[in-house]
């Protein structure tokens, strides 16, 4: 796998984080968090990828000795996606509740927790 995928993974992770730091809207911040997490998907898949290797499914046509892409990282990525869905849903629900209670989703205007 070329170095390109790793650069994309690192960039997504950091750009997502910077996006949250600069965010003026909580929904935007939640999406940025998902972008950050996509960096980990790309990283994991890049680790397991092999040029020209098929998917890790063994049947009558493929011998058990065939070179395949690594199924472990794919399982990790799936777990990661489940985590992401849970956290994103929870965060969006909290954002809606913040809008209801505070009348804004701009972090600059939320000041109940200073000091």
């Amino acid at each position: 796998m070329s170095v390109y995928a790793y650069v994309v993974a690192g960039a997504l992770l950091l750009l997502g984080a910077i996006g949250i730091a600069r965010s003026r809207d909580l929904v935007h911040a939640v999406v940025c968090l998902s972008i950050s997490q996509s960096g980990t998907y790309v990283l994991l898949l890049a680790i397991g990828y092999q040029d020209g290797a098929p998917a890790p499914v063994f049947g009558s046509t493929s011998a058990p000795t065939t070179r395949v892409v690594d199924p472990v990282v794919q399982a990790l990525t799936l777990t990661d996606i489940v985590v992401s869905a849970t956290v994103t849903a929870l965060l969006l629900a909290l954002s809606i509740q913040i809008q209801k209670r505070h009348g804004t989703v701009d972090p600059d205007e939320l000041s109940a927790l200073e000091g």
Partner: protein
Amino acid sequence: MPWEGTASSFAPVAIGVPLLVACLLAALGKLLPRWAVDAVATVAVVGVVALDVVLLRATRAGRVVTWVGAWTPSRGSSVGISLVADRLGAGLALLAGVLVLAALVYSWRYFEDVGAHYQVLILLFLAGMTGFVLSGDVFDMFVFFELMGAVAYALTGFLVEDDTAVQGALNFAIINSLGAYFTLTGIGILYARYGALGLPQLGEALAGQPPDALLVIAFCLVCVGFLVKAAVVPFHFWTADAEAVAPTPVCLLFSGVMVALGVYGVDRVYSTVFGEVLPHDAVRRALLVLGALTALVGALMCFLQRHLKRLLAYSTIAHVGLFLAAAGTLDGPGTTGAAVYVLGHAGIKGALFLIAGTVLSRYGSVDEVSLHGRGRDARVMPWLAVVAGLALAGLPPFGTGLGKAISEEALSASGFRWGPVLFVLVSALTGAAVLRAAGRIYFGLGPKPQDDDQDEASGDEQDRETPALPRVRATMLLPIAALLIGALAIGAVPAVARGVSSAAREFLDGQGYVQQALHGAAAEPPAPLTEAAWTATGVALDVLSVLLAAGLAALALWKAQLPDRLRTVTRPMRSAVAALRRAHSGHVGDYVAWLLLGIAAFTALVGVPMI
């Protein structure tokens, strides 16, 4: 083979039982009356506590290794996933179980009207914590870390009608999730290079490798999530926001055990995987710097608070700094001191949070200024609060005092002369803050302060979590008393510290961990340390902290009566203090910026000395 036999089924059952009961309650909770839900949840937690006790007894003969699905290693290599319970891990699982039990019992009468999802979340939280400490696989640690996290966010925002609760939960969730993604990136790097995720497999693969930049980066990234969970400066900002707004019984769990698990995660991964590769000196320096900084920032912020739950949250940050400094010595005495301190602190801080809960439910506020003298009618609670405040400062023979004494001596013995000074100062400041608040609320001491400071978070906006209570219920008093007695027993019963010291030496033996888990080598139970006991110096330093705490509390209570000349001395400090306060802005973007800065600083601390 040591990974066969009955003992090896305790660990998965201890994780599975709360998960299973939580699912059952989630499905059937609507049909059951409240008392039945409480009863089922409590019985399940008692069962987990019993399993943890049995597991802890079984670990006396060595680590209990379970290869899930019987994927046992052949000739020292394995594609299986392991659960490895050593004494420290099983002890922490037991601590988590006991604290969850205390929180549940307190909640019986504390929450008048709560759906079954509260008990469901508490049970899931227990499963996450138990899994995290018993796991022998770095990806499983991440999964349990995330389970713990997701449940903790939901519990923080549990009172969704409260303005501050939703904001605190959101800050907590974003920072913790982001930290977890950096951890996952580190895990990915490790897997890419060594093709393994199990702690024993990784430990064996890394042993004897030369340290290089990628390994340093992997270690630091894996630690990020754990450091966030541990509330280490500058990853700590979520803590005060979350603990100020979470329901009080939940704060007991966050403060008593969850933050300590962060320190555990760093130490576990270092001792099993990186211990043979990364030089001790570089890692020790990084952990000591972060620990000392965390302790000082936490103690100072704690002393400045008037919102009781924020005060206790910052005090937790201060104590986590002390745990990290003690465990950061990476030797037996330091780890023993940290572990005893964690146990004692869990009892004391848990009791203090529950006392703050009774204040909130009786008087409708957690602001020590506006509650001045309001608690004069209480009879038992004032004295419990004073005892807990003194114990927080290190009053012998409480477990906090013993943990502090052992840690101080460990740091001095390793050549860090500033160690005892830091411990005395930080524990005195946090104890003083609690004594000051108790003096104001329960005894009406000192003049009522002018209510002019607009910057501070006051505790008046805090919504009641329950209807006003005419008196404190017995089921609320019982956990408070039990936690205090537990903290007393940890310091007063010599066998506890002895047991912890041999657990700590076993914990640090990364090679033994690998050999036993992968090769089925016989365990060599380490002898307890002789240092793990009270000494004259330790008692003297503890008494010094307690006196200093009482003095500082008195100074804070009666500062208005001080002569003007003395008060001007403190003026130059005020701008520094104001800047520190402003840094704790409650703004999630700022917190992320601090997180990125913290990652860079930690990596530099570990990596630069190795160049």
